[in-house]
């Protein structure tokens, strides 16, 4: 945090089968480097990066960009760490779901990861970006773009073919995810059209105990 202030702390989490390149992906993103050696992640790790976000919305909030501090959680893909890694799903605002384009099984497992997410994430439909990694290894490709795209479409999430080795689409994927989060955030709190003072609760469509209990607290929060 030595580099001073920021406006938002945004937490992402990378997940996917073991060996699909989550760590490399994040390393490429934060440091622009690639190490082809395979080092398995022990449980969890995270990297950080500071970026400036400029709203791309129609109203184009232009002006000064917002300073984002990204905390990028890296998870072990190995099964044995599963219980540990899933505990972190709840803390992430967005997800980078990776598979290995040269490994079909990792692609088939995307579905399972999706359901893991839906189960453990902070909400039922969190923002996710699907990344087919290792696209530089064209000759070893085992998953074609079309089917990956189709799957992503089915889930309604963006899909990118990335390469942690040469950096292709890596930052783009993260940026798209960031954009999704920022949009969601606005959506979450925009109730400008409602007369002042009437909104107490968050307006979330799910009823909950907390909501009822915190009603008073909520009153002053908005």
């Amino acid at each position, binding site marked *: 945090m030595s580099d001073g202030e920021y406006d938002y702390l945004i937490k992402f989490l990378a997940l996917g089968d073991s060996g699909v390149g989550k760590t490399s992906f994040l390393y490429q993103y934060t440091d622009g480097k690639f190490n082809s050696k395979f080092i398995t992640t022990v449980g969890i790790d995270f990297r950080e990066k500071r970026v400036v976000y400029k709203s791309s919305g129609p109203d184009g909030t232009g002006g000064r960009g917002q300073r984002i501090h990204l905390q990028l959680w890296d998870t072990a893909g190995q099964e044995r760490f*599963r219980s540990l890694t899933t505990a972190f799903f709840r803390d992430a605002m967005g997800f980078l779901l990776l598979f290995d384009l040269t490994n079909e099984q990792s692609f088939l497992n995307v579905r399972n990861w999706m359901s893991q997410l839906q189960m453990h994430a902070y909400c039922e439909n969190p923002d996710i970006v699907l990344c087919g990694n290792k696209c530089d290894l064209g000759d070893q490709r085992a998953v074609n773009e079309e089917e990956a795209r189709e799957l992503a479409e089915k889930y309604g999430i963006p899909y990118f073919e990335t390469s942690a080795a040469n950096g292709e689409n890596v930052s783009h994927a993260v940026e798209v995810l960031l954009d999704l989060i920022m949009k969601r955030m606005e959506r979450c709190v925009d109730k400008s059209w409602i007369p002042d003072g009437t909104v107490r609760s968050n307006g979330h469509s799910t009823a909950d105990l907390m909501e009822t209990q915190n009603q008073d607290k909520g009153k002053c929060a908005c």
Partner: protein
Amino acid sequence: MIDLSYLSKEEQEVILAVLKRDAALKKAEEQRVKQLHKTMRDKSKLKYMSGEWFYETKSLRHGDRIHGSDIIRASMRQRKPMTILELSQIWAEKSSFVNSENKDVFVPPELSGLIEEQPAETKTKRCCWFLPPSESCITSHTNPNTDSPDTSPSTKNITKPVPRKRLLLYSSQNSLLDNTDPADRQRSSVIPRGILKHSSSSSSSGDSFPLRSPLSSPLSPQSPKSPSAEYGSLSWLDRKQVRFSPAINASDTAVLQDGRELGEHGLLDQESSSSTFSDQGEEEDTLNTITTGNGVNNSQSYGQDTKECPGSEAQGRHLTSPSCSSPMWNSKPTDRQREEKLDMFLGCRQTEMRGCDESRTQKPIDQHDYHADPHADQVSSLHASAEEKGDSVDTSPVRTTAKQTNIRPMSISKSLEDISALPSREERWKNDPRGELNLSVHDVSAGLSPTACSFLDPEQMKLMSMSVPAFRQQESNGRDSDCTSDSSFQMSTPKRSTSQANLSMSSGMASMSSVSGSVISIYSGDFGNVEVRGTIQFAINYVQKLGEFHIFVVQCKDLAVAEPKRNRSDPYVKSYLLPDKTKLGKRKTCVRKKTLNPSYNEILRYKVGIETLKTQTLNLSVWHNDNFGRNSFLGEVDIDLSEWDFNNTQMSTYPLKGRVPSTPKPHDHRGEMRVALRFVPQTHSKGSAKSGEVQIWVKDCKNLPIVRGVAIDPFVKCTVLPDTSRKSRQKTRVVKRTANPVFNHTMVYDGFRPEDLREACVELTVWDHDRLSNHFLGGLRLGLGLGTSYGAEVDWMDSNATEAALWERMTEYQNEWVEDWLPLRMLIMARSMSR
């Protein structure tokens, strides 16, 4: 708490170092947020700058604000799992904004049972977003006696491991079957030959690719034409083996394939038999029992359940499946299973609360145990019976057998099996008293699995087990929610049973099957018999910037008392944008407890274009949330948005209206399809019986019913019955946003002997492709419609006159295309067809 004892000391240190860094970051963040609170005036901005929007949402879902890292840290500190209470104390110590506030929000499970305000509903709800309706349907009636979580606080403390991560072998399951030992195959039946499907004129991969594993290549021992290598990983390409088996009990092949198209057959299940359950998360207000199709018995038996006689569970089930002739379905569940389920249910909740599952590591034992249970198969059969219910109108023994065979493997693949359990399963099968002559597919498939198991190399197995983490969880969550609704039956008062019964009687599956989930709540006549009175105040607005429609629900006044005994109502408001009655189109406010004048001040949002919106009707209904029984209808308001002035964002008060009980009105009009058929006999026969191919040219459809929003994304599926295997299914592409799609897709099935044309039936079904679940639009069956196939009575051989006429013309004019516009209709799905 998570059992992290598997971590080595070094690993722990590494992880702790990471957590330390995280803690530092968190601390800085807290500082920043603190600062923000001091300086930031704009409350809503504060909310997202501080990340509060996120924590709020998260706590709504998880019931706490506990950080994953805190869980891990605590887990590491304490080598033995702590109790939740201890945990909560640990967390309660911290009260920083980011970290917790858990004094407010964190409710240890022990307490939650005691706190009345705990809406079971939210617990249920959170899991069902991705839950295929079929599963919910499977589980929802299996256990009416499960103690409701809110009534049994003591049981909540059970920290018994939850068989949560039951791995599901769905993809390998395919291969298990396909790699069938020929002997077994033979036993299973008489598959005279395969029909080869080839050269689909356009891609037919559809959405079936996602879970294709290398293992699932459709090898067929029977087919000389399909060397496994050829099909290895190319199975989704056009050319694939289609096993066309006239024998009904061979249709196992189809069913085991599921899992792959989960989303999709979820949809069919939803459509074809058990619509309500797709919505089960909350729809206690809908008639859970309706879809069982035997409402009378149901309501009665559940009524009895209220008296808590220990045996009533079995009894209840007995009653609910009167049409199931197989003794299998009548089998009594053991207490053990019940406990198991209860545990699963409770455990599920618990782990939810904790956000982590300590149970995992203990699971293997547990699983083993479970599967070794000689009665385990009965659990499947219970599932089967639950699944069965929609079809209960039909009592044909053949049908039942067919269903049995179809369902059986499916429940295996869906519910109970997992790799680690295979050994014990094997044992079970060895001891299985059922003889070898038993043709039931369930035995066949059971017998096969161990065999096929050896096909898997251990490494592969490991891989599989690693790779399918979530499925089981999904299901236990499904169970979770279902148990909640199950428990509702215990409490359901006799007063309701009558109307329930009526409805379910009148709503044969045919009429209900087209409507999805919540439609029941929209159309059904039973709303709990509470009078309607009072008003609702709300404002609506279209937020152009976000492309969202917002309904600001302010309050209700003077609502009726839903529970006279306790003199209370726990109302919430629910919205739909009609005609979209799908679950995805539902929004709800939170429940306000014990009030007839609830104040909500909540926004219900829809991401929807204004043009679409203007074709819709806003339906706002008020319901009493009953944690134990069905929710009761308290009144509603409909706003025709086509006439709405969207500049009007004023809050308005409307009187609540009652609902005229109307009979379920499915779409009578389903549009038409133009299809051409051609039978081309193969001339170059090599001695063996000459066969030919049936070509089906799906040209276009018109006037398809618009079941959701303003636009549908139709596609057509094709299967040649009686072969219901997934492999024989072909699909057209999805044509986006039109009720008049042009497909021009030709499907080819070969291996037809001329005489097969009398026995087979081409089923074409039109679907609206939706992200999570497709919606059935209509279908047709091209065959002779004689009611029998290869000597067996089948209900899918029900082609009407026009359909049969086309088929006859095809038979008559070989080598020529014959074409017709045929009206689409409701189909009573052959059970397996819906897979």
